[in-house]
């Protein structure tokens, strides 16, 4: 079902490929200094550089010139390497839809000529590059810190000997307890032993005279219960010396490599986004969570517990210095949640929230009741880490998946990223992304697919909700209500947003259905305070998801009256007419009431809101097909769920044809799909398509009819293309008869135009379709109407 939302196999149009090839050609032309002042086709040097950089940044090709400065040559070389893939014909099916659409749009010939577009792209690029630069700077600092050798390895043995001599009598006293701890596997006893042993160790260090650098290093060490028990049970001092030396020695080469390549990136993708107001405890929490995120890399003792504890300590203090000087605040576009580095993907728990989605810091969530980081650190000290690693991994995984969800990142987006990684040959990324996608899917299903009908409701409403949400937002911004929301966020920003997130997280943990199962009264008595602070930031989006049901509920509960209409969707219609300014004052007042009720219901229905948060009904930074389609269509009239699903499915199939879809859609003027109960054919008036029963029935029919009707709107919005069609096929001596599949004869040039598009797309989507207009047979545009076919492929697809 989800695959309808993010097409996994878009129609190959070669559009992007040819645009990228042209960009590369222009790049090669400008490699010669003397050409820089000249035009290459319609490209300028500046223009070429901006678009080269954009492609490289958007497709994540930075790795191709790792270590080099971002010069024109290296940008071009990155693009060329990408284009030289043997699978280049697969390009369009591997680039995530949001990225593909963005690239296609910015590389569009017309858009490319607009200076303001190039300027805004450049501005955004500057921010992205600044972020990357900052990331690289922090990476370097943390690497240096982690690998800093304060005591040469050869000194460690001597130092260990000194310490053992000092602690010997006291450590002997722990032997009995240690034996018991091993026999009983007593965690509390292990904890006590660790604390005692650590104290003995610290006291011993204090008694010996070390150079200050050595002392600083040794004081930062935390001996684990395992080491203490081992030391206590050993009788031979040489053995003890070896045990202690292993615990306090610096990282080995292998360990260094592991830390640098697999663990540190998780730390710096989290640290980079922290503001200078972050407290010391919070920074330590973030560093610890970063280690937890990569727990699978060291859960089999690839890294001794002491070294993990030491690294967390020193990296936290280094991060504190870094964060204290952090003045730059990046937008979500520049500071992404998923960051690729060295062939792996890291998830930032601290990336800036997407406007309109729930706000707050995910890294603060487990601190309150969950104590995830505390449990992790204790398990390292107590020597229980290995046993607890699985459970810890599952807990950090939930947190990471929660972050992905509220950032609007979907399983489909991850799967498409995996395809792109495969295309680039980065196979470790592929595995990682696929695993994350699969984990995200089960996380979301667990969270909100508990009722059997919930899945269906979700699927059928999802796209429509985005569209509705836009209308709600439009209305809210016009009425000043969104200022209330924004004010709410900025004024009580931190606490309110954090409470909001905490509630969503708790809702998820205890099960959304259980929140509502107690009935409204229970929620009022127990949850109103938390709920009321929770929902404001994501209100409009949440209302969007609930739109169809919430207003229906509002009507039933408060008996608002017949003016609203019989169901949720007719309310959407009313809302659309409000926002277009066509209604009277009374209706506006009525709407205010409805909105108040809606807000109240949003507060009450914590469960569904949690569904919408976790289910991804939020804006994704990369953009998504759901967002794109909602920027194209909106619904009006009384649609039943089945018809709505059918129509949404038709829209999604249509949106697979990227070139057509991008020329058809205009987000400032949505195409309104009005459900009409009549026995005639569906029809178009202005920007509205009236969908009757004849144009539904099954997905094939819905697709065929919708495509034909959009063909008329396409003509009106692309007058130059229609004009060319009219020149050829409207002439008295036209070269080819009108396409027979249109059932109403005689066929006018306008209908011929819409039908050419329809037959082209229906041939691709439903090749077996039988056309009554041509005597009930299959018709192939390419073979039976070759001139029409050439026209549509040249001008439209």
């Amino acid at each position: 079902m989800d695959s309808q939302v993010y097409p996994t196999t878009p129609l190959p149009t070669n559009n992007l490929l040819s645009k990228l090839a042209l960009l590369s050609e222009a790049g090669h032309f400008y490699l010669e200094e003397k050409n820089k002042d000249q035009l290459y086709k319609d490209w300028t040097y500046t223009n070429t550089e901006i678009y080269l950089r954009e492609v490289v940044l958007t497709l994540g090709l930075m790795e191709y010139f790792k270590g080099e400065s971002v010069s024109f040559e290296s940008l071009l070389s990155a693009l060329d390497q990408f284009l030289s893939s043997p699978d280049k014909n697969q390009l369009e099916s591997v680039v995530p839809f949001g990225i593909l659409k963005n690239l296609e749009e910015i590389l569009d010939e017309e858009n490319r000529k607009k200076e303001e577009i190039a300027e805004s792209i450049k501005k955004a690029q500057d921010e992205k590059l600044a972020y990357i630069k900052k990331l690289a700077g922090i990476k370097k600092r943390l690497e240096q810190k982690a690998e800093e050798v304060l005591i040469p390895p050869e000194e460690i043995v001597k130092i260990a000997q000194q310490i053992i001599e000092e602690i010997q009598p006291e450590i002997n006293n722990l032997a009995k307890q240690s034996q018991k701890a091993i026999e009983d596997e007593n965690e509390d006893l292990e904890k006590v032993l660790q604390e005692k042993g650590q104290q003995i160790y610290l006291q011993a260090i204090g008694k010996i005279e070390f150079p200050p650098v050595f002392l600083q290093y040794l004081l930062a060490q935390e001996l684990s219960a395992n080491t203490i028990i081992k030391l206590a049970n050993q009788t031979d001092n040489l053995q003890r010396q070896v045990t202690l030396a292993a615990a306090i020695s610096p990282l080995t080469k292998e360990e260094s490599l592991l830390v640098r390549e697999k663990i540190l990136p998780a730390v710096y993708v989290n640290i980079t986004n922290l503001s200078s107001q972050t407290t010391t405890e919070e920074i330590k929490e973030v560093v610890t969570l970063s280690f937890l995120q990569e727990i699978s890399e060291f859960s089999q003792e690839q890294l001794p517990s002491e070294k993990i504890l030491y690294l967390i300590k020193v990296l936290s203090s280094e991060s504190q210095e870094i964060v204290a000087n952090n003045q730059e605040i990046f937008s979500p576009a520049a500071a992404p949640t998923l960051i690729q580095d060295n062939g792996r993907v890291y998830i930032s728990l601290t990336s800036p929230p997407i406007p309109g989605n729930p706000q707050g810091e995910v890294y603060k969530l487990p601190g309150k009741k969950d104590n995830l980081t505390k449990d992790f650190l204790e398990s390292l000290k107590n020597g229980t880490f290995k046993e607890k690693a699985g459970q810890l991994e599952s807990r950090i995984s939930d947190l990471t998946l929660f972050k992905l969800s509220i950032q609007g990142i979907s399983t489909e987006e991850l799967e498409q990223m995996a395809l792109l990684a495969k295309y680039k040959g980065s196979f470790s990324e592929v595995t990682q992304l696929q695993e994350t996608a699969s984990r995200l899917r089960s996380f979301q299903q667990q969270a909100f697919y508990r009722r059997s009908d919930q899945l269906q409701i979700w699927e059928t409403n999802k796209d429509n909700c985005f569209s509705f949400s836009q209308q709600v937002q439009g209305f809210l911004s016009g009425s000043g209500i969104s200022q209330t929301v924004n004010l709410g966020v900025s004024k009580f920003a931190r606490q309110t947003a954090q409470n909001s997130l905490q509630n969503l997280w708790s809702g998820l943990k205890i099960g959304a259905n259980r929140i509502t199962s107690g009935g409204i009264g229970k929620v009022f008595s127990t949850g109103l305070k938390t709920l009321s602070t929770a929902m404001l930031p994501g209100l409009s989006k949440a209302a969007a998801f609930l739109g169809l049901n919430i207003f229906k509920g509002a009507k039933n509960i408060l008996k608002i009256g017949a003016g609203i209409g019989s169901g949720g969707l007719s309310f959407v219609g009313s809302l659309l007419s409000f926002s277009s300014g066509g209604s009277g004052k009374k209706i506006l007042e009525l709407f205010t009431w409805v909105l108040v009720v809606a807000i109240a219901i949003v507060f009450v229905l914590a469960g569904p809101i949690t569904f919408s948060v976790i289910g991804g009904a939020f804006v994704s930074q990369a953009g998504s097909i759901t967002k794109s389609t909602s920027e194209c269509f909106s619904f009006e009239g009384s649609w039943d769920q089945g018809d709505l699903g059918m129509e949404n499915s038709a829209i999604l199939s249509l949106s697979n044809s990227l070139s057509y879809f991008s020329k058809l859609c205009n987000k400032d003027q949505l195409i309104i799909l009005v459900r009409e109960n009549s026995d005639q054919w569906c029809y178009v008036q202005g920007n509205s398509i009236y969908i009757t029963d004849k144009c539904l029935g099954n997905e094939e029919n819905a697709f065929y009819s919708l495509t034909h009707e959009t063909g008329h709107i396409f003509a009106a919005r692309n007058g130059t293309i229609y004009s060319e069609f009219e020149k050829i096929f409207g002439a008295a001596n036209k070269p080819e008869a009108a396409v027979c599949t249109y059932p109403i004869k005689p066929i006018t040039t306008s209908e011929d135009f819409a039908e050419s598009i329809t037959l082209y797309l229906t041939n691709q989507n439903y090749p077996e379709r039988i056309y009554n207009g041509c005597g009930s047979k299959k018709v192939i545009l390419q073979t039976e109407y070759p001139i029409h076919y050439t026209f549509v492929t040249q001008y439209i697809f």
Partner: protein
Amino acid sequence: MIKNIFKKYKIFIFLGLILIIIIFLKIRASNQKNLPTTPLIPPTVYIAPTPTPDPLLINKFWQDLINTPKESLLEKLGPAEKTVITNNRTVLTYPSDTENWPTQVFLSIDKNSVSFIKRFFPSKEETYLRFIEKYGQYDKKYFGEQSPSGFDIYIFEKTGIAIVASKDSDVILQVWYFSPNNTENLLLIENKNLKETQPKVF
């Protein structure tokens, strides 16, 4: 006691507060709308535009042909490529820049003078917006054969010009010429294609 009442009705108090905030913001928003607005864009230095030839100058040529005697027409344009009968009128066709789409010159019923001209696929510079800029707002709008594709008929009655144009795309398919302030010929010739209300497009 008061505490209990508050506890019992806190949802209503809360809803009431939200309502008050919304009403307050609405009043404020409507007040703000009435405030005089200050220009956001600072005044810029006026730079005289480079004079470019008016792409609509060509209309003058065709407008001047309306009502001219057939002889003058032949003097100016030469012999017609073809003579056909369309809508009971004699139509002389002259080649245009677009293959298969000659310009049609309709003669009056007595065949003595030019009463109506149809020019197809004018240059790309002749746009809907330029027509509006030059001739002012159209006087009438009709829906015609190309309306299903968004091309409606806009009539500039006083200037004796009509265009079949897509407002959304700013593209023109046809330009028609007739006697200023007299749409009789236009309506007679195009009668069956003109509709005053927007038809349903199936």
